């Protein structure tokens, strides 16, 4: 433990948590403005800096299109009455919001924000913790946030929050499996679980889904696009479910459950749930970008031309990464305002019957493609035939599971 390491870690923690929280507030304003333009509205565009309450004559209206709106939202949450109903289980009621936010922020620790920066004679990785089990760490910690939601639902001691908590629990468990299985092809391809190395590989050899430079131009990589594309779709959808975002926001589901697990919450405690959801969305986008779209790499072979370790290159890469994350956040928002909410049984069917099976078949498909050079065409054909038979069987079983019992027979 040298001082450089400690100091760098402390600075990184401060900066990256700062970036994450800034992104949370940016998410809020993006969500509001983007949904507004989708619905032919304007959205909050005239939030001012209220100098009048400080005794000045006029409010300061900056031409920034309402970017101060998140500040106003936050102030509103802080200044609202923090009401705790008398019938709740106090301890759990108070601890639940924190349990939602903390995992979301913790998972940010392993995401590489930029390329390693040279400092003296050491390279400092631009991730708080350069773990060798990155994605596993994220899955382990991210699934903890369900405790917060379930506890909130249970501690509220009220029926709708309880339903919300139970739904959230079931949903998280269902999609955790698809989430874990769907990235196995990705990990098989990289052969490492270190997110930093994964990004470095992609910078040199083409982003996972856009392999157009370096080794990415090989036939094998282009064949891999089939299983990787399936992986990407399943992974992204599961991230939507994990973050309780719109097509899968059954835990809060205003139309059925009032507000779901946070019905009884007010003020800053509610804001923490809100923040937790958006922080999870930011981390989810960051993870998708890191795994499938080359993380911090600028791409198209440009990274190789830049000097490694220079501070400005690192900053450039951080900027590139944040741009990609922003694009993905916009995608999240677009999906929210496009796709209607699933019915609960549809959600469960999708998770257990469609995605689980698809991810499972996908793992073997990816294995077959990776093994192609060593087993040759004959082996490949046999493997493919076996895979088709197994898939057909799986699909048949899945179909049997969805069939409803005949009403007449019962």
């Amino acid at each position, binding site marked *: 433990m040298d001082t450089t390491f400690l100091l760098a870690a402390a600075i990184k923690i401060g900066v990256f948590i700062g970036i994450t929280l800034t992104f949370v507030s940016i998410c809020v304003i993006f969500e509001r403005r*983007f949904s507004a333009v989708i619905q032919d509205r*304007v959205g909050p565009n005239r939030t001012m800096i209220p100098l009048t309450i400080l005794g000045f004559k006029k409010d300061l209206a900056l031409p920034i299109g309402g970017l101060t709106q998140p500040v106003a939202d936050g102030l509103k949450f802080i200044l609202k009455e923090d009401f705790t109903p008398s019938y709740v289980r106090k301890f759990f009621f108070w601890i639940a919001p924190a349990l939602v936010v903390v995992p979301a922020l913790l998972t940010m620790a392993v995401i590489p924000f930029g390329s390693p920066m040279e400092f003296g004679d050491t390279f400092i990785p631009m991730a708080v913790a350069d773990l060798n089990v990155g994605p596993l760490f994220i899955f382990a910690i991210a699934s903890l946030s369900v405790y917060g939601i379930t506890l909130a639902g249970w501690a509220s001691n009220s029926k709708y929050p309880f339903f919300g908590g139970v739904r959230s629990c079931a949903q998280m468990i269902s999609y955790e499996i698809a989430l874990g299985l769907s990235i196995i092809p990705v990990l098989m391809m990289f052969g490492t679980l270190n997110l930093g190395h994964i990004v470095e590989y992609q910078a040199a050899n083409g982003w996972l889904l856009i392999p157009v430079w370096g080794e990415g131009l090989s036939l094998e990589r282009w064949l891999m696009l089939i299983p990787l594309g399936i992986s990407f779709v399943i992974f992204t959808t599961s991230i939507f479910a994990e973050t309780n975002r719109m097509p899968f926001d059954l835990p809060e589901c205003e139309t059925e459950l009032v507000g779901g697990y946070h019905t009884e919450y007010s003020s800053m405690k509610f804001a923490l749930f809100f923040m937790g959801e958006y922080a999870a969305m930011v981390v989810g986008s960051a993870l998708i970008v890191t795994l499938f779209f080359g993380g911090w790499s600028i791409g198209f072979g440009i990274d190789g031309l830049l000097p490694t370790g220079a501070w400005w290159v690192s900053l450039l890469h951080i900027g590139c990464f944040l741009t990609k994350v922003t694009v993905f956040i916009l995608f999240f928002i677009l*999906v929210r305002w496009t796709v209607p909410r699933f019915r609960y049984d549809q959600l469960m069917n999708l998770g257990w019957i469609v995605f689980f099976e698809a991810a499972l078949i996908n793992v073997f498909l990816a294995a077959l493609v990776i093994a192609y050079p060593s087993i040759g065409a004959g082996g490949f054909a046999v493997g493919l035939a076996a895979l088709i038979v197994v898939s057909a069987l799986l699909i048949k079983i899945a179909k049997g599971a969805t069939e409803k019992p005949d009403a007449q027979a019962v």
Partner: protein
Amino acid sequence: MATIKVERPKLSVGEKIYFGAIFKGMIITLRHAFRSLFGKSVGADDFNSSGMGITMQYPEQKWDDQLPEYYRGVPALVTDEQDRERCVSCQLCEFICPPKAIKIIPGEIPSDDEWAKVEKRPKVFDIDMIRCIYCGMCEEVCPEQAIYLRPDYVVTGTTRKDMVHDKDRLYEIGGKRIGLVNKWNDLK
């Protein structure tokens, strides 16, 4: 009566995969987003849009020229062409006012005044705009055609006192009425 069995529609494979529908939906939402960003939303012109979506941004943009002729805005007092206050403080409006928004204290016109013959005019004429319901009964009941509902509708104030229109304010809003003014003719 025969029972009608309603079957769920049979979906084709493409529809079952569902992604096509999602992409179509995204194209629709994105088209709306871009159109409203460039002020080309459907109906933007009809609604006098500010250039984003179809929204007209209120305090900067108003639709006053679209107000109908019969629009009932704030009640106000008027003077005639010789600058005489038309109101003779008969207090009929005060009595008819359903929410009791009008308060009149009648005063006599001194005998050396130009209009001494009229005998009375209001000393105090307050309309509490928090109470006023813009029903127009004061206008209807007034025998002197002294009170009218004007097309103004922006009544704002930061205190309750601000919201009470006193006599000066009412004459300021109402202004002067020239010529024969009847409630039933076009001049309003």
